[in-house]
């Protein structure tokens, strides 16, 4: 497996999409999207449903290839050997096996990523899942399942963390815990890209924001500069088109 050096230039760290188009047949899910998430920063990817946020994350993770354009994670294609272990992804679906217990699910992924058993125990503790470690994943409530999915995504201490609508459907306490976890990631110098259509949740944790509308980048700004009303206006404008 190729070795990815730690001493890359700052511009090579993090995530970069350049001129990315994604076509499904004749439909363009993404049109000429360019964005960068700098190392150690948290980027909020905003936009109404169907704007292309999930597609951006799937391309960033290497799950899908762009039709045109390039995507780079730490300077290399995300699907490459050596790069995949730097990426953590948590999306709508949990990637968990319902018949396996919480602990068994984590042990399975730990084996795939070469993480020792102690890492699983640590993850269970970190995400307050110790009490349900022997409960089958299929029997967990949505909030717990999301937490377990997040534990799975972060198990191997990835440098780039991609989260697709992580706050959706969460109760207040879990949402707060999630926010704290993301802030911790930022403190640890991880790069986080967070897709959501809700501003409130992302505002607390993001440095920068990119708004997608109809597959295009509509706005790029520092998180502090974007007010909720601006966002609502953008969405409404898109709806009328």
């Amino acid at each position: 497996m190729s070795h990815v050096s730690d001493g890359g230039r700052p511009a090579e760290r993090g995530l970069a999409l350049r001129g990315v188009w994604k076509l499904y047949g004749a439909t363009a899910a993404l049109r000429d999207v360019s964005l960068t998430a700098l190392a150690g920063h948290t980027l909020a990817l905003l936009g109404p449903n169907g704007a292309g946020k999930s597609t951006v994350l799937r391309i960033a993770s290497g799950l899908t290839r762009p039709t045109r354009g390039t995507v780079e994670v730490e300077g290399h294609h995300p699907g490459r050997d050596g790069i995949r272990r730097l990426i953590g992804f948590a999306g709508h679906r949990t990637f968990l096996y319902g018949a396996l217990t919480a602990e068994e699910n984590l042990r399975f992924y730990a084996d795939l990523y070469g993480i020792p058993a102690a890492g699983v125990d640590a993850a269970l503790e970190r995400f307050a899942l110790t009490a349900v470690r022997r409960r089958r994943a299929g029997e967990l409530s949505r909030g717990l399942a999301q937490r377990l999915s997040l534990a799975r995504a972060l198990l191997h201490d990835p440098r780039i963390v991609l989260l697709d609508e992580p706050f959706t459907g969460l109760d207040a306490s879990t949402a707060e815990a999630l926010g704290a976890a993301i802030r911790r990631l930022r403190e640890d110098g991880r790069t986080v890209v967070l897709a959501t259509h809700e501003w409130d949740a992302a505002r607390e944790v993001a440095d920068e924001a990119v708004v997608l509308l109809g597959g295009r980048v509509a706005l790029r700004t520092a998180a502090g500069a974007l007010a909720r009303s601006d966002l609502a206006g953008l969405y409404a404008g898109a709806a009328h088109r």
Partner: protein
Amino acid sequence: MRPLLAILRKDLTVEGRSRDLIPAMTLVALLLLALSGSAGLRGLDGAVVVWLAVVVSSALGLTRSFAAEVDQEQLHGLRLAPVDPAWIYLGKAAANVVVVLAVEALILGAAVVFLDLPLGGRPATLAVVLALGAAAVVSAGTLLGAVLAVAKTREALMPLLLLPLTAPAVMAASGGTVKLLEGGEPVTGEVLLLAAFLALFIAAGLLMFEYVIEE
């Protein structure tokens, strides 16, 4: 190697807990035996029915095996992991072989009881043919199962495709089994064919699996 064992263990645990593959497969197989038996089929011909039962029940089971990777997009989780897709194929195939061998043993027992299948005097070679036949069907069926699951297409296509594709293996296995149960005729040709089939489909699986699961 480690990812293969992890996937093997995971699949067997999931099957062991949900217990839906082996019972369903065995029931279908036993039905085939029962229907043949009640229609008067006896003796050596039972060997052919045994292998038909193996491939038909495998067609049923091998679709379900990949269905478990779809509902929570677990397959994506596997793809994101730093694991060569070839290991995913081998791991799943290994788990499927265990399942099919278990069902095969049950079918064989049932055939002895219901169809008066004579168990001849070459158990070692018979075991080899049984194992190779199961592996052959699984090598094709695991690849097909992935292909059909990713295409999100109807499960009914599995028997339609698996049966003709594994026909040479099933023919060799049943022909060989008849010979083994009947007398002393050598089955080298049949064993060679089974090995060749296995080699071809494992190679195809190893090469094509990553193309099948990528998007």
